[in-house]
């Protein structure tokens, strides 16, 4: 155990701290709405890419900073930005999920073509995975693509496609090999959202905003080279992507930052003239969460150490998403309680402008439930932890009851 940074890492920490101090005022706001990056966010992104605070390890020929992977460096940068409450750059599905997937299993041509514009925020991606009939059972996807005149022709429907209404591209899981078994019949296509035959209908969520969409495909044409790996490899590629999504969803820095905001709020907000931090019942809840955030934070450091050594963390990694999303929800729940009745006025202004603080917390609190469900719901996570992590047997297959006619 040695929590000290090496001289090189200390230098980076100094550098990052200096950077956020000098340029932090240029950062877009963190948290709240999910929308297409505006000019401010794109400028910030450009600055981060130039200085190597974003896409640090992506090869420069693909538009990254081109440094060799050093997981500790990434942690230092993330921590400094998080501590300063400054945006770490654009977080979206293209950057967090598609880019690492292409780096892992894509061709060089695909990396050159897609990664640069994606990390700059010029191309926004959405994820075409779930369907009305296949959510947790993702591999049962029915949306199909047949090859005709050297092109894929896509037909079907996807659901929960967040950001589809402003995305430029979709990574799509669809069935191309109808004669093969469930898992072997899928392919992973890169589909332009402006292709004729795509219809996007907003899906209003409990937050009152259209954060998701239903996406319909009618004879949508996709060039055959816009496939990641080969035909029938879609399930493998989709799982590579899901691995990155689940790592993103359990991020301990987000918890640390949120906890700090909750502490600040409880120090300044009062109930009948008494600071919330001085009211034992609220303070106990805060302290309990602090213990859990600390445990999650050090669990993250432990995983990072194992990753840096090339070790397989097994079940320790599988618990991250379930653990992190639950704590995030409980933290925003505490803040919503501290805001209390005064925090109930709720008119989200949508994607056009910034919401006020209380509305942002209410949205985050509800959105946290979306995160508990998305990327493999909490119940599915528990199956994965139990089966892949602990070696417990799968549920026996049962046949659904016949439809009565």
């Amino acid at each position, binding site marked *: *155990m040695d929590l000290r940074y090496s001289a090189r890492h200390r230098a980076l920490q100094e550098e990052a701290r200096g950077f956020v101090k000098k340029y932090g005022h240029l950062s877009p706001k963190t948290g709240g709405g999910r929308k297409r990056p505006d000019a401010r966010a794109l400028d910030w992104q450009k600055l981060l890419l130039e200085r190597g605070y974003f896409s640090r390890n992506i090869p420069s020929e693909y538009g990254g900073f081109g440094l060799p992977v050093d997981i500790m460096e990434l942690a230092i940068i993330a921590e400094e930005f998080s501590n300063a409450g400054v945006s770490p750059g654009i977080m979206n599905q293209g950057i967090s999920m598609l880019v690492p997937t292409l780096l892992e299993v894509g061709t060089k041509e695909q990396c050159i073509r897609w990664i640069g514009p994606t990390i700059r925020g010029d191309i926004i991606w959405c994820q075409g995975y779930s369907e009305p009939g296949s959510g947790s059972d993702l591999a049962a996807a029915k949306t199909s693509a047949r090859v005709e005149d050297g092109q894929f022709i896509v037909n079907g429907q996807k659901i929960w496609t967040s950001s589809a209404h402003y995305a430029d591209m979709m990574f799509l899981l669809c069935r191309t090999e109808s004669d093969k078994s469930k898992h072997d019949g899928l392919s992973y296509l890169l589909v332009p959202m402006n292709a004729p035959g795509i219809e996007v209908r907003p899906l209003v969520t409990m937050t009152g905003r259209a954060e998701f969409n239903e996406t319909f495909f009618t004879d949508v044409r996709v060039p055959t080279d816009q496939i990641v790996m080969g035909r029938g490899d879609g399930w493998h590629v989709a799982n590579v992507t899901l691995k990155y999504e689940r790592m993103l969803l359990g991020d301990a820095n987000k918890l640390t930052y949120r906890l700090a905001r909750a502490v600040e709020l409880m120090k300044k907000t009062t109930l009948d003239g008494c600071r919330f931090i001085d009211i034992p019942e609220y303070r106990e809840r805060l302290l309990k969460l602090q213990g859990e955030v600390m*445990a999650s934070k050090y669990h993250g450091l432990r995983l990072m150490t194992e990753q840096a050594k090339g070790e397989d963390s097994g079940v320790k990694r599988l618990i991250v998403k379930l653990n992190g999303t639950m704590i995030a929800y409980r933290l925003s729940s505490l803040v919503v309680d501290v805001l209390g009745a005064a925090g109930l006025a709720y008119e989200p202004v949508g994607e056009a402008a910034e919401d006020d603080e209380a509305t942002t917390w209410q949205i985050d609190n509800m959105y946290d439930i979306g995160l508990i469900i998305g990327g493999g719901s909490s119940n599915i996570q528990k199956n994965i932890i139990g089966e892949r992590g*602990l070696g417990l047997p799968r549920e026996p297959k049962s046949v659904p009851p016949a439809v009565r006619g």
Partner: protein
Amino acid sequence: MEFGLSEEQLMLTESLRGFLDERLPMNKLREIAEGGLGFDGELWSGLAEQGIMGIMVPEDFGGLGLSLLDAAVAAEALGYHAAPTPFTAALVMAPLTLIASGDRAQQKAWLPRIASGEVRIGVGFAGMSGQTGEAVARLDGNKLSGCITGVLDGGDATHFIVYLGDGRAALFAAVEEPGVSVSTHRSLDRTRPVTALVLHDARAAILGAANDPKAAATAVLDAGRVMLAGDTLGAAQSMFDKALLYSKERVQFNRVIGSFQAVKHTLADIITMLEPCRSLVWYAAHAQDGPAEEARAAALQAKAHLGDAGREIARLATEIHGGMGFTDLLGLHYWFKRIAFNRQLLGAPERCRHEAAVAQEWVS
């Protein structure tokens, strides 16, 4: 930066676990637990051969001079086997007290004897530890009077250290001296007893060499809390392992019960709670060598969080065993009670969290 155990620490775990696997089977544990003293001569000499007596004693005084993280690793192994042996007070808090508050002569007199396993020192606090029960002590010259309940590792102690309210510590012999009355009772946790001291002008040596006695006492108290958290971690891991094994063997409705989602999800919930606990305990142990504010918050949060997570895991793991879990037959209850005991000693979760709030200056 590296967050994890060293090769040596992994070896320490492995050798202690191997030793206890062999020397402390269930029937032996039951036998020692029946007496309830939390001490067994044979086990103690075996542990001495394992080298843990001198774990916190500096090398100059015949010990190993290891870190508190090494001790936490040992605590986890002892908790894993519900080992009925003195440890937290006798092998961690007592040597740390002598290091922080003893003068050179006192260190020379006592530390080598701790490292050899010759003396076993129980530790009690007159106030400040956050325990319930009577705890008052008064010093008159070198004569100590008072009543201190909830003394740790008092079962077969040869000596005691009692912390006074001002942070100074008093050391005295267990039974031979006039004015010292020691009463030890079997506790809920049959692997460790509860001890009460009644003192009437007992002759004591004052350990008063610390520059800031209160801070020194607090550091020893927090080290003890980290050890109890480590012990709970081991006990909870043990209960989880037993429940996982049981769920893969026990058949109902023609299926092993671990294939039912109700059971599978419970096991997933336990491991999701348990693994981050380990990182918290390791960090808390490591942080005790660092800045005081961070060290305090980490020790207090580790004690509090393990208290709660341990209780929850103990219940869930017992439930998975069904009726058998509730019986004496499996002996699962030894770990359940071990966790319950650790929770109450040196401050229960609510009390520790309040202290953490004060230590971080959230409240005054």
